[in-house]
């Protein structure tokens, strides 16, 4: 279970982060911080940096969350990562053109390179059978290599100020300025507008392009609206918060939402929500102590949401799936025990109303201990009561007597009925050989619903006996048990067939 490691690491970090280690000159090493004080200060929004981080989280959460929904559904999840590499030649050329680290020239260069990369991805996808991820990879590594070549040329040229240009474009979350935040606000509004205006078109083109075309949706136009919007969102976020945070905000919240919902609308909403929450939680976390990098904390906050959904999501979560499976197994085992009890009773022509655990064990072909355990399970589930020793050892259990409660009797009858009806159906209607139908019925008896059973009854014209000549318990048989007292010591023979 290596996947578990990410969570403990995160938890560990949160725990061990706070005793600040001491060394010289980093600001975080020479100041003391206190949880409570910092929390209050964060919530008071007194510092411009905190205000920027909070607003930035909200805006980026919204825009990346919305774009992320489509990006993840369209298998373009690594688009952010791709663009962050593909802008490098643009950055280098912007520097060459302005001959200085002029932010405007570099930003323009980066945007143009990003757009070109986007167009090339779309082109490769359109004209070849290369898959999305490979197309992204081609652009990522190809463009990046061009950038590296230009940089190695630049480093030989006489500028004297080219150091750090490959990192120059990339900001970090803690360095957000109010200009960055307003730019992010614009992008977030753009994303919201895009989603509301082209909601239907984006949905249908993402799901089924051929069909979209057939109903006259301008597929190409929609594709470029999405990709160009995305490019702009990624490049602006890149220069504000850096590569990894952009990739993470684009993917992780949307993937988390994808685990929780089956509807696109809900997915977009949840994704934006998780993005915002991750941003806020991460910023807050990194504000609590010294030397806690903000961007990575936001990433980890988003991942922890994902991990929770991955394990505990109600529908697709690992733990939920496991629980459901376990319940299922338990239920089948209970039903099999009840069926065995019924069959023992039936073998005795319903002369007795109780079953010994020994007989049950013989019927189920298990050990007495095992049968006793199963019988106890039945008792605990309220389907039976037991008369006999409390000692669960085999010697005492052998003769312990098990009485089905009315609920247990009803369920047992239903299961046997399902089983025999299905056998009859397979032999009469599907023309299976009578000796081949048992296996199949063993499985299906547990899952046949009310409607299917009614349907089978109609097809088979309310049969009384199964292919092996055994009586199929009817509704009356079920009712026979319902008026009973649960006192195991009372009358005898009331299950007797007439």
């Amino acid at each position, binding site marked *: 279970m290596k996947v578990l490691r990410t969570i403990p690491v995160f938890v560990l970090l949160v725990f061990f982060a706070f005793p600040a280690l001491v060394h010289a000159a*980093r600001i975080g090493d020479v100041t003391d911080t206190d949880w409570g004080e910092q929390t209050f200060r964060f919530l008071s929004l007194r510092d411009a940096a905190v205000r920027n981080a909070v607003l930035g989280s909200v805006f980026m959460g919204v825009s990346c969350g919305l774009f992320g929904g489509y990006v993840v559904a369209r298998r373009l999840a690594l688009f952010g990562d791709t663009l962050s590499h593909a802008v490098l030649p643009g950055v280098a050329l912007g520097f060459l053109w302005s001959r200085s680290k002029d932010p405007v020239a570099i930003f323009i260069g980066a945007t143009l390179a990003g757009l070109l990369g986007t167009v090339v991805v779309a082109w490769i996808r359109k004209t070849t059978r290369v898959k999305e991820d490979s197309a992204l990879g081609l652009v990522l590594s190809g463009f990046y290599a061009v950038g590296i070549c230009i940089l190695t040329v630049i480093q030989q040229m*006489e*500028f004297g100020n080219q150091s750090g240009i490959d990192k120059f474009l990339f900001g*970090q979350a803690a360095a957000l300025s109010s200009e960055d935040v307003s730019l992010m606000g614009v992008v977030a509004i753009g994303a919201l507008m895009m989603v509301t205006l082209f909601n239907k078109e984006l949905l249908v083109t993402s799901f089924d392009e051929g069909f979209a075309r057939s109903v006259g949706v301008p597929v190409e136009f929609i594709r470029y609206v999405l990709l160009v919007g995305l490019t702009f969102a990624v490049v602006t976020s890149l220069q504000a918060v850096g590569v990894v945070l952009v990739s993470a905000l684009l993917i992780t919240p949307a993937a988390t939402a994808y685990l929780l919902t089956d509807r696109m609308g809900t997915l977009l909403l949840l994704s934006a929500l998780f993005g915002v929450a991750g941003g806020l939680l991460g910023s807050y976390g990194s504000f609590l102590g010294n*030397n806690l990098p903000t961007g990575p904390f936001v990433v980890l906050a988003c991942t922890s949401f994902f991990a929770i959904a991955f394990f505990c999501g109600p529908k697709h979560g690992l733990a939920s799936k496991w629980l459901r499976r376990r319940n299922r197994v338990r239920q089948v085992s209970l039903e099999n025990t009840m069926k065995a009890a019924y069959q023992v009773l039936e073998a005795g022509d319903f002369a007795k109303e109780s079953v010994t655990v020994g007989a049950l064990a013989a019927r189920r072909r298990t050990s007495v201990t095992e049968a006793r355990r199963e019988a106890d399970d039945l008792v605990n589930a309220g389907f039976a009561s037991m008369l006999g020793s409390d000692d669960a050892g085999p010697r005492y259990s052998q003769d312990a007597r098990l009485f089905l409660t009315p609920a247990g009797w009803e369920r047992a009858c239903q299961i046997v009925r399902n089983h025999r009806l299905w056998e009859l159906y397979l032999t009469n209607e599907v023309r299976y050989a009578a000796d081949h139908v048992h296996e199949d019925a063993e499985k299906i008896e547990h899952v046949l619903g009310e409607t299917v059973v009614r349907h089978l009854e109609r097809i088979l014209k309310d049969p009384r006996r199964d292919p092996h000549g055994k009586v199929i318990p009817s509704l009356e048989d079920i009712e026979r048990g319902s008026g009973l007292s649960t006192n195991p010591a009372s009358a005898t023979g009331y299950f007797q067939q007439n």
Partner: protein
Amino acid sequence: MQLLGLGSIFTILFFAGCDAGDSDGKLVVVTTTTHVTDMVKFVAGDRLDVIALMGPGVDPHLYKPSAGDAATLAKADLIFFSGLMLEGRMADVFAKVSRRGTKAYAVTENVSEKSLLEPEEFEGHWDPHVWFDPAIWSKCVDVVSDALTENDPEGKAGYTERAEALKAEYLAVTHWAQARLSGLPEGSRYLVTSHDAFNYFGRAFGLEVLAVQGISTATEAGLADRVAMVDFVKKHGVKAIFVESSVNPAIIEGIAKEAGVMIGGELFSDAMGQPGRLEKGPDGEQYDIGTWVGMMKHNVNVIVEGLK
């Protein structure tokens, strides 16, 4: 040719042991960072050709050799590099260089460990930005002149003479800088920058150095650190803070804005400026920012002008 009949791949691999070598017999000397280049060029004088791998403004962390650089290295006789892992993997390669005929020297190899700064938790991982401490940097000159002498005994007199001259010049700059910086009021001797390259500088000239980020370029600043820095700047009445040539200035700009102080200017940290470009100091003196001396003067002037 040193070939034995081993696998055919390996046969081809080493088919060539016989490089033509340089015909004129002059030693080929290759240097890495701008600081080392400046030093080696001065000591070597006209006697040797010195080829620099990293041009002005090239950050040693991010330098990538071009095909030409690779060819230069392949025929190098002597390689001078900064050492202390400043050049990352490349320093590692140089330290183990095993090709026949190539010798590599870290200029910092004889610096005593005691004079180096190291983090408390991790011994032996010294701060590599030693050129900001003139005392240490002077010792490095000896490494260069000794190495040159060893490989070119005939030039010994010249090397020793120029090395002494260089050290004298370093000393002069040190005195000048101390005088300049001592003019700063006691309470305002804080050097606030984005990353942690100025520890030696602070130690040598009595400034308290504070950075938002650590030495490693992989770190990121935190929100709390940024706010704490703003508080610090306000509390101590720091007049100016400084950006560095090789780090994105956004965070320092943000802090300056919030704390209401000015950006004192751009400091040279891991690389120097373009050789031959002259800058005029506030006292009217002209210096070449492509040399160590000019770089120091630039930094000192920027700091003093900002903080006074």
